[in-house]
C-alpha cells in the first residue's frame, strides 16, 4: 500500500489546497504542495528499491466491468516506472521549493491556485508513469493536458499567456485524439488494456495492425512531447511562470511522450516499421529545433527549443531500438534542463520579471555567482562535456546512431554541435558581455534568495553526478552498453567546438553577430520563424478556419438559420390566421366538424375491409 502514497499524496495536496486554499493561505498551500511532492518522492524511492528486485503491481478497483473484460485501475511498479517516478517527484519537489521564492511577489493574490495546479500536474504525471493499463495512462494524459493548460495560462490577464495556453491545449488535443484511437486500436487487437496482458500477447497479433496502433499511440506522444509537426505550443508555452516551464520540460509534460513510447516499447519493437517513423520524426525535430534555437533571443525560448531538440534525440534513440539510452537521457535531461530553467528564472526574477530577452541582460557573472555556476553546469551537461551527466547519456545515443548508420550518426553530431553552440551563446551573452540592462534598470541585479538557489545547487550536483549511474541504470533495465572511446572523444570534441564558436563570436567578438545576422538574413529569419511552421499554423490553419467560420457566419448563420428562425414567425402567424377561422367558437361549426369526423369513421369502418 505504500506504493499508493506515491500517487495519492500530490492528489491529496491538490484537494486540500483546492478546497481550503483560500482559508489556509498561500504560504501554507506552498508548504502542502512541497510536502505532497516530498512524500511522493520518499515513497517512490522505497518503491524503487522494492521494484528493482521484484516488479509488483497494486490493483485499486474495477473501473468498468464489461461482459468479457473488466477494466480495472491499478499501479504497476517495475524498474522503469519506479525510477521515472522517483526522478519526476525529485525534480518536481525541487521546483516546488524554488517556486516559493519565484512566486513570492505574487503571494496574497490567490497564488494557492498555482500550487493546486502544480500538485494536480504532478499527480497526473505520476498516473501516466505508474498506471498499469492504457486507460489509466489516458486519464493521466488528459490530466497533464488540463494542468498544463491552467499553468501556461496562469498569468491569464496577459493575452500572450492565454493564447499560448489555448494553443497548447488545442495541439495537445490533436495528439490526444491520436492517442485515444491508438488505445482503441490496441484494445481491438489485444482485447485488453492492461500493459502486462499486452506484453504477453504482443508477438501473436497482426503486424500491420499493430504498426497502425503504434503509430496512433506515437501521434499522442508527438503532441505531448512537442515533436514535429505538433511543436508550436512548446516554445509559446514559455509565457507561463518559469517554474511551470521547468516542470513542463524537465519532469512532467514532455517527458510523458517519451516515457509512454518506452513503456509500450514491446509493442513498438514488434512493429519495426513504426519505429522508423519514430526515428525519423525524432531526428528531424532534433535538427529543426536546434537550428531554431540558434536564432532566438528569448531567454526561455532558447531553452525550450533545446528541450525539443533533446526530446527529438530521445525519440531518435527509441526509434533506433535503444530504449535504455533514451530513458537514461530523459533522466539526466530532467536534471540539467530543470537546472537551466531555474537559472533562467533566477535571472528573470532578478530583473523583477521584466526582462525576457538575452540582449537586455549581460555581464551578470559578477552579480549572480550562484546562478552563473548552476547555469554553467547545466549548459556543460547539455553540451555533453565529460564528465557531466549529459556526456554519459548523450554519448549512448551518439554511439547507437553511429552503430545503426553513418547518416544518423552525423545528424546527432550536428545536433550536438548546435546544442553546445546555442546554449553557450545564451550563457555568454547573459553572463559575460556588455551590461545591456544599464540604461533600462537603475538598480543592480541581485542574487536570488536561498529558497531559490538551494534547489538549483541540489539539481546542479545531480546534473554532475547522475551520469555515473549509467552502468547501474543499464544493469537494472537489463541492457549492457560498452562505451566507445573513439565516439566519446568525437562527441566531446564536437561539443567543445560548439562552445568554442560561441566563445569566439560572443566573447572575443571575432564576428559581429548583428552583422552576421544581417548578412544571413533569409537564413536567420527562416530559423527564427521555425521554418515558418508557426506562421503557417496561425495564418493558414487557424486563420483559414476563422475565415471559413466567418463565411459560414455570414451565410449559414445569418441567412439560413436566422432566416429560418425569422420565417417561423410569419408562417405561424399565417397558419394561425387560417386556423382561427375554424375556431370560430360557433357550436354549429363544431357540430359540422364532428359530422365530418363521423363520416370519416364511417368510411373506414364500412368500406375499409
Amino acid at each position: 500500500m505504500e506504493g499508493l502514497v506515491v500517487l495519492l499524496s500530490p492528489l491529496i495536496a491538490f484537494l486540500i489546497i483546492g478546497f481550503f486554499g483560500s482559508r489556509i493561505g498561500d504560504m501554507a498551500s506552498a508548504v502542502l504542495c512541497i510536502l505532497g511532492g516530498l512524500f511522493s518522492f520518499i515513497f517512490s524511492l522505497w518503491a524503487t528499491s522494492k521494484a528493482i528486485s521484484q516488479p509488483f503491481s497494486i490493483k485499486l478497483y474495477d473501473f468498468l466491468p464489461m461482459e468479457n473484460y473488466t477494466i480495472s485501475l491499478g499501479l504497476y511498479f517495475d524498474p522503469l516506472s519506479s525510477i521515472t517516478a522517483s526522478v519526476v517527484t525529485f525534480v518536481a519537489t525541487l521546483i516546488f521549493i524554488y517556486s516559493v521564492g519565484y512566486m513570492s511577489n505574487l503571494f496574497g493574490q490567490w497564488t494557492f491556485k498555482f500550487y493546486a495546479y502544480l500538485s494536480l500536474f504532478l499527480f497526473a504525471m505520476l498516473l501516466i508513469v505508474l498506471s498499469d493499463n492504457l486507460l489509466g495512462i489516458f486519464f493521466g494524459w488528459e490530466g497533464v493536458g488540463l494542468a498544463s493548460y491552467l499553468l501556461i495560462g496562469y498569468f491569464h490577464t496577459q493575452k500572450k499567456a492565454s493564447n499560448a495556453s489555448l494553443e497548447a491545449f488545442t495541439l495537445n488535443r490533436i495528439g490526444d485524439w491520436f492517442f485515444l484511437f491508438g488505445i482503441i486500436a490496441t484494445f481491438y487487437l489485444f482485447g485488453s488494456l492492461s500493459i502486462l496482458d499486452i506484453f504477453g500477447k504482443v508477438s501473436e497479433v497482426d503486424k500491420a495492425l499493430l504498426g497502425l496502433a503504434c503509430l496512433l499511440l506515437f501521434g499522442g506522444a508527438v503532441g505531448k512531447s512537442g515533436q514535429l509537426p505538433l511543436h508550436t505550443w512548446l516554445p509559446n508555452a514559455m509565457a507561463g511562470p518559469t517554474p511551470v516551464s521547468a516542470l513542463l520540460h524537465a519532469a512532467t509534460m514532455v517527458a510523458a511522450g517519451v516515457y509512454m513510447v518506452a513503456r509500450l516499447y514491446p509493442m513498438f519493437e514488434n512493429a519495426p516499421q513504426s519505429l522508423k517513423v519514430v526515428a525519423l520524426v525524432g531526428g528531424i525535430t532534433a535538427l529543426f529545433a536546434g537550428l531554431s534555437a540558434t536564432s532566438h533571443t528569448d531567454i526561455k525560448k532558447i531553452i525550450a527549443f533545446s528541450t525539443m531538440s533533446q526530446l527529438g534525440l530521445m525519440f531518435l534513440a527509441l526509434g533506433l531500438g535503444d530504449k535504455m539510452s533514451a530513458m537514461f537521457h530523459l533522466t539526466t535531461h530532467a536534471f540539467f534542463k530543470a537546472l537551466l530553467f531555474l537559472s533562467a528564472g533566477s535571472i528573470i526574477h532578478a530583473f523583477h520579471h521584466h526582462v525576457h530577452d538575452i540582449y537586455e541582460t549581460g555581464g551578470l557573472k559578477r552579480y549572480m555567482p550562484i546562478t552563473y555556476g548552476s547555469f554553467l553546469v547545466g549548459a556543460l551537461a547539455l553540451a555533453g562535456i565529460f564528465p557531466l551527466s549529459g556526456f554519459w547519456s548523450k554519448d549512448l545515443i551518439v554511439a547507437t546512431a553511429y552503430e545503426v548508420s553513418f547518416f544518423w550518426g552525423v545528424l546527432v553530431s550536428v545536433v550536438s554541435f548546435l546544442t553546445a553552440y546555442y546554449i553557450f551563446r545564451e550563457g555568454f551573452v547573459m553572463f559575460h558581455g556588455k551590461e545591456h540592462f544599464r540604461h533600462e534598470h537603475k538598480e543592480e541585479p541581485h542574487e536570488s534568495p536561498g529558497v531559490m538557489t538551494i534547489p538549483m545547487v541540489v539539481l546542479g550536483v545531480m546534473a554532475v553526478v547522475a551520469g555515473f549511474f549509467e552502468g547501474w541504470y543499464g544493469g537494472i533495465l537489463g541492457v549492457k552498453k560498452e562505451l566507445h572511446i573513439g565516439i566519446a572523444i568525437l562527441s566531446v570534441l564536437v561539443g567543445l567546438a560548439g562552445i568554442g564558436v560561441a566563445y569566439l563570436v560572443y566573447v572575443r567578438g571575432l564576428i559581429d553577430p548583428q552583422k552576421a545576422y544581417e548578412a544571413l538574413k533569409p537564413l536567420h529569419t527562416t530559423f527564427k520563424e521555425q521554418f515558418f511552421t508557426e506562421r503557417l499554423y496561425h495564418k493558414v490553419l487557424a486563420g483559414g478556419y476563422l475565415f471559413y467560420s466567418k463565411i459560414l457566419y455570414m451565410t449559414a448563420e445569418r441567412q439560413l438559420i436566422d432566416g429560418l428562425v425569422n420565417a417561423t414567425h410569419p408562417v405561424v402567424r399565417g397558419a394561425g390566421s387560417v386556423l382561427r377561422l375554424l375556431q370560430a367558437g360557433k357550436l354549429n361549426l363544431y357540430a359540422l366538424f364532428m359530422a365530418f369526423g363521423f363520416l370519416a369513421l364511417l368510411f373506414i369502418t364500412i368500406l375499409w375491409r
Partner: protein
Amino acid sequence: MEWLIFALLSTWAIFSAMGVLFLKNPVHAILSFISLILAMAGMFLHLRAELLAGLQLIIYAVAIVVFYVLVITTIPWEKVKKFEGFYKREFFFGFPLLLGSFALFAYAILKGSFANTGLVVKDNVREVGKSLFSTYLFPLEVASVILLTAMIGAILLGRKEE
C-alpha cells in the same frame, strides 16, 4: 298490407322531420316534433314494441314537449323570434356530408346480413318488464339516479338569482 303501413308511417315521419329541420318558428318546429313522435309510436307498434310505443307517447309527447313549450313561454317572444332560420353556409357543407353518410349506411344495411337467431318473442311487454327488473336492474337504478341528478341540476340552473 305491411308495406302499406310502412309507407304511410315513413312518409309521415319524413315530413315531420323536415318540418323540425326547416320550419322557422320554434313553436312550429315543436309541433312538427310532436307529429314525428306520433309517427314513431306508430312505427314501434308496427314493430311490435308495444311497451316502447306507450312510453314514447307518455314521456316524449307529454313530458318533454310540454317542457319545451313551458320554457318557450318563459322567454320573451321577441328574443325567440330573433334567432329564427338556419345557417346557409353550414347547410351547403353539411348536406353533402350527411348525404354521403346516408349512402354509406344504406350500403351497409342493404348489403349486410344480420344474424338470424330465429327467436320470436311472443309477449313483448312482459318480457321487457321482466328483464328490466331482473337482468337490467342495476342499469335501471343508475338511470333513476341520472334522472334525479338531472332534476336537481335543472332546478339549480333554472332558479332565480337572489
